[in-house]
């Protein structure tokens, strides 16, 4: 199925979200996916998808949160975003700047720190095209 996805840099997010809010779009959800890592123990980058509804049509704004990087909070524009951002912070370790309500990592009080950020499997190196050749890096 086709999806309306726009790729953004984190710093472009506030302006884009303000634009959507001004156009009357509703924030439907924010989701995160920990991308596969190439080596065990490596911290994965996290892909964030912000979904909006405008007159029944769903569109998505997608950006990559690098390990250790910060993402601007959109809870100043869409107040309910604080709940999604707190959840993603706790489950994936993404830091959001300027959340309207900051639970400081105590939303779910999970015993394991950032449990979802280690869920993605280690990306396997593809096998050589011909036996005997060195493996692709």
């Amino acid at each position: 199925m086709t999806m309306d996805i726009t790729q953004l840099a984190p710093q472009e997010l506030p302006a884009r979200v303000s634009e959507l809010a001004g156009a009357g779009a509703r924030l439907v959800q924010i989701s995160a996916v920990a991308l596969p890592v190439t080596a065990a123990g490596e911290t994965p980058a996290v892909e964030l998808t912000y979904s909006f509804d405008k007159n029944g049509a769903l569109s998505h704004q997608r950006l990559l949160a690098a390990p250790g990087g910060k993402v601007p909070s959109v809870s100043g524009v869409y107040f309910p975003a604080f709940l999604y951002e707190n959840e993603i912070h706790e489950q994936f370790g993404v830091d959001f700047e300027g959340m309207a309500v900051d639970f400081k990592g105590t939303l779910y009080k999970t015993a394991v720190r950032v449990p979802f950020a280690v869920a993605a499997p280690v990306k396997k190196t593809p096998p050589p095209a011909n036996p005997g050749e060195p493996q692709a890096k």
Partner: protein
Amino acid sequence: MKTTIIPLGPQHPVLPEPLSFDLVLDNERVIEAIPSIGFIHRGLELLAPKRDFEEFVMIAERICGICSFMHGMGYCSAVEDVMALPVPRRALQLRVILAELSRVHSHLLWLGLAADAFGFENLFMQTWRLREDVLDIFEETTGGRVIFNIVKVGGMRKDVDDATLARIAAKLESIKPQLKQITDVFLNDYTVRNRLAGLAVLSGAQARELCVVGPMLRASGVAEDQRTRSPMYAGLDWEVVTEPDGDCYSRCRVRVREIFQSINLISQVAGKMAADGVAVKAAGAPNGEAFFRAEQPRGEVVYYVRGNGTRFLERFRVRTPTFANVPAVIKLLKGVELADVPTIILTIDPCISCMER
């Protein structure tokens, strides 16, 4: 100004599931409400990469015991979108019937809880007595009263014959007079109306700004319902239920009217069932991603799945209606009397199992 902080929950007589609010009060008036969740977080989404995608539907159903069919259906529909599976029309019709039955039993459950919360225990008992009839239908058709295990990727695990469906529709029509007798109390009784009318008003503009969904949104006059965009409901005669006032009474009215509407939808579908089978084989494995939206009893639910061509999904996520509605409660509680807080929280029909997953 001297303030007092009163903790409400996580265990409270009106809360069927644990949810906590720290209420900052000036005398009896709430000036701030700070929610706290996490008492029943299970991390079910984390199991998706560890279970075969066809088996995962059983975990999806266990997200919640009230919306279990809807979660199974939503998960399967999202995977079917990724795999572009041509689900038979009969399977989609059976899904509509079970989804609407879920709405009837969920709204009856809520009405009972609401009656109990404002001290009308006989009304609570009578409402739940009628809900038992709906659960009996679930048991007859699926074998379960809470977890059904009847939906699968590609369609349904088993068929329900036309004669049984006609009998179910007739049974639901036959309980309408009793339903009307009970719901008339919710709509017309002086004490009930006095307790709910004008309380915690959310205007249509505020509801949109706070991104609320479901009966809470429709009670503020906004005609938004994911069923209007679903091909499963195409060709059925129905319209979105709305109420204009945005208060607790309007939220109650919307749910009451939706019960009767769901029964009508079931009768319509049961009368024109297709005969093209109930499932197709889910050959291969999902490779790609999809968002699927459905209208649960509590409102819009969003399922996201991402597959990588193996039998194990890379990611499964659910945004449940309660997750979308809780931020609005924070705003609604500001300025209300302490005694009204439990009733207001209840009128969003919170489902914490869904919210925390």
